[in-house]
């Protein structure tokens, strides 16, 4: 039986015999975000997976440092813009860690940290934000789709990719990230619907960080939670504390397993908070007050995990210091390499618009080449020759 035929031959039955097509109850999220850290559930996790907890911790510390370093680079003019994920590191890191090597990650502009946690060189991950013209990495190398800026447009891509892999019989799960604001876009809706109808192996991770730039969630949705949208597509909706790396890891892992086993997509809402402004160009004081930010600092993802690990004897001062040193080393390396001017060739602007440049692009290429030659003060003759070529345009 082919993939699509598995949907079966649903036929509309008249209302007397009508049945709901699925039982909605298991698709509904819990009333409160799922938490592990600071609860009894933490015991079991700590016993079973000490290495995982340490890995999460190390990555969170590194992730925070990555965020502060990247933000600093904007001030030095080394990045055109940086949308920080400070405060959201648990989501970023967990998203990366729950995936197998052959799975795919679909990040938004805010999720370079997830890409880095998946193994991408930070300099590559920041290429676009630096002001270069391309994504900086071959998406196939680490199975990380290009950072996506038009909101929610990456979600149907994730669905299509996961569906294609399933059609080919490959074991691939796609995890796609989107913000609370992005859930309002039509593409969010269409992607979730396609995923559910096709039973595509996709996990949708909504980072509900409370704001879409200045717009708070109350102006974005009236839903009980964003996870409640899932039932409307016939997929499970899960609500999780987005600052609890362990809870996230568990919920996302379960969703990935479910998808891998052919169970179809899951929508996960992670309740978190953006500690920094939307980007370095944003002034968050215009739309929120410090006390709110402070309340969330109290619920910091790193502090939460650190506290738990320390209390359980899985982390000591040396461990903390080691994690911080690793993070510093990463930051120093990043800083140094980002402080080098990238070598950009303007002629590359024409190189990949099409597989083969059109005749029209060839003319324009010639024109720019001539201008650049003239700029660089090539010999008068060479310049004139190039110019004549450009003239034919």
């Amino acid at each position, binding site marked *: 039986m*082919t*993939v*699509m*035929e598995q949907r079966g031959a649903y036929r509309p039955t008249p209302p007397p015999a009508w049945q709901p097509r699925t039982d909605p109850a298991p698709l509904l999220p819990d009333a409160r975000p799922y938490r592990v850290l600071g609860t009894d559930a933490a015991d079991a996790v700590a016993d079973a997976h000490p290495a995982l907890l340490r890995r999460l911790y190390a990555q969170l510390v590194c992730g925070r440092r990555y965020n502060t370093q990247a933000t600093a680079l904007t001030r030095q003019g080394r990045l055109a813009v940086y949308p920080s994920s400070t405060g959201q590191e648990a989501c970023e890191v967990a998203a990366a860690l729950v995936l197998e090597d052959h799975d795919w990650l679909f990040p938004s502009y805010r999720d370079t940290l997830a890409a880095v946690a998946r193994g991408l060189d930070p300099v590559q991950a920041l290429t*676009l934000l630096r002001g270069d*013209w*391309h*994504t900086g990495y*071959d*998406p*196939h190398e680490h199975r990380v*789709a*290009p950072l996506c800026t*038009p909101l929610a*447009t990456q*979600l*149907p*891509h*994730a*669905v*299509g*990719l*996961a*569906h*294609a*892999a399933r*059609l*080919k019989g490959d074991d*691939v799960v*796609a995890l796609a990230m989107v913000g609370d604001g992005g859930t309002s876009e*039509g*593409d969010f*809706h*269409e*992607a979730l*619907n*396609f995923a559910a*109808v096709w039973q595509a192996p996709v996990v949708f991770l909504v980072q509900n960080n409370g704001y879409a730039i200045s717009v708070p969630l109350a102006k974005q949705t009236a839903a009980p939670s964003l996870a409640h949208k899932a039932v409307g597509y016939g997929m499970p909706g899960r609500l999780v504390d987005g600052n609890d790396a362990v809870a996230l890891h568990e919920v996302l892992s379960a969703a990935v397993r479910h998808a891998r086993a052919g169970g179809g997509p899951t929508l996960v809402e992670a309740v978190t908070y953006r500690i920094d402004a939307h980007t370095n160009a944003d002034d968050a004081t215009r739309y929120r007050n410090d006390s709110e930010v402070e309340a969330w600092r109290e619920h910091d993802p790193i502090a939460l995990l650190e506290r738990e690990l320390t209390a359980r004897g899985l982390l000591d001062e040396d461990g903390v210091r080691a994690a911080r040193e690793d993070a510093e080393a990463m930051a120093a390396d990043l800083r140094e390499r980002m402080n080098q001017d990238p070598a950009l060739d303007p002629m*590359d602007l024409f*190189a*990949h*618009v*099409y*597989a083969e440049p*059109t*005749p*029209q692009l060839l003319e324009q290429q010639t024109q720019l080449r001539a201008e650049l030659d003239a700029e660089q003060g090539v010999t008068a003759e060479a310049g004139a020759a190039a110019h004549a070529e450009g003239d034919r345009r």
Partner: protein
Amino acid sequence: MTTVALKPATMAQALGRAMRDAMAADPTVHVMGEDVGTLGGVFRVTDGLAKEFGEDRCTDTPLAEAGILGTAVGMAMYGLRPVVEMQFDAFAYPAFEQLISHVARMRNRTRGAMPLPITVRVPYGGGIGGVEHHSDSSEAYYMATPGLHVVTPATVADAYGLLRAAIASDDPVVFLEPKRLYWSKESWNPEEPVPVEPIGRAVVRRPGRSATLITYGPSVPVCLEAAEAACEEGWDLEVVDLRSLVPFDDETVAASVRRTGRAVVVHESGGFGGPGGEIAARVTERCFHHLEAPVLRVAGFDIPYPPPMLERHHLPGVDRILDAVARLQWEAES
């Protein structure tokens, strides 16, 4: 090579055959869209594909054009070659963002690592008595978008050849299908289809010496008819069928106009901001000193596409073309 009797085929059949052959030749080719499977498409262009290749290869999607094109992007990222059907031209608009911001740019953004070999089939144009939203000509939008190829057949043989070429292309192609030529027939040998030519070459459909009619898609037969009618007036008109709007075949077009010294661009799409402006401008840039008169344009009016009862007044017809030819300042000659 055995000689096979030519059989008349419609453009719709040739298009269907092109998909069939492409699917048979390449397992990565997938057809998707609204009603393309069980029904075979509202114009029956995909008729039989789901039966022959199964639902996985020819898929009835949910009703959401951005979702169709967006998932096609993801499928192409994984190495498939989606052939997407938009049910009507105006119903491709919801997919505009995916088309402009992703389909057209993914190759560039990834330095060639992630090309998107997607064919977007768009039935376009009027003349079929469609009610509102069913007869738009939107080629101007696609032409203005770098990263897309834009092609449109005018003959049954080209429909096959160009669609095969589009599907074979490693770049996204907006494939505009002239609705009112779907049922046009030609003698054509489906057992020996025309070989796949690269996209980007115009063709002279009728040689002539007095002036050049530059056109494409649904207006090609009209221009040929006009050229025949023009003989009576003593004009020997050349008709150039562009076939590909992007890339544009400056060479063929400019050579023709240099020969004839006069040109009229003819298309159904609205005139203002339509393809004709670009075409007239490039021809003038290249042939200025050969021109006896400004390049004129005969196009649809700058109005929402009219309804069945009035569309004949809107469509560029033989008379309107001949009127334009008459304005090409022939006095200068005598």
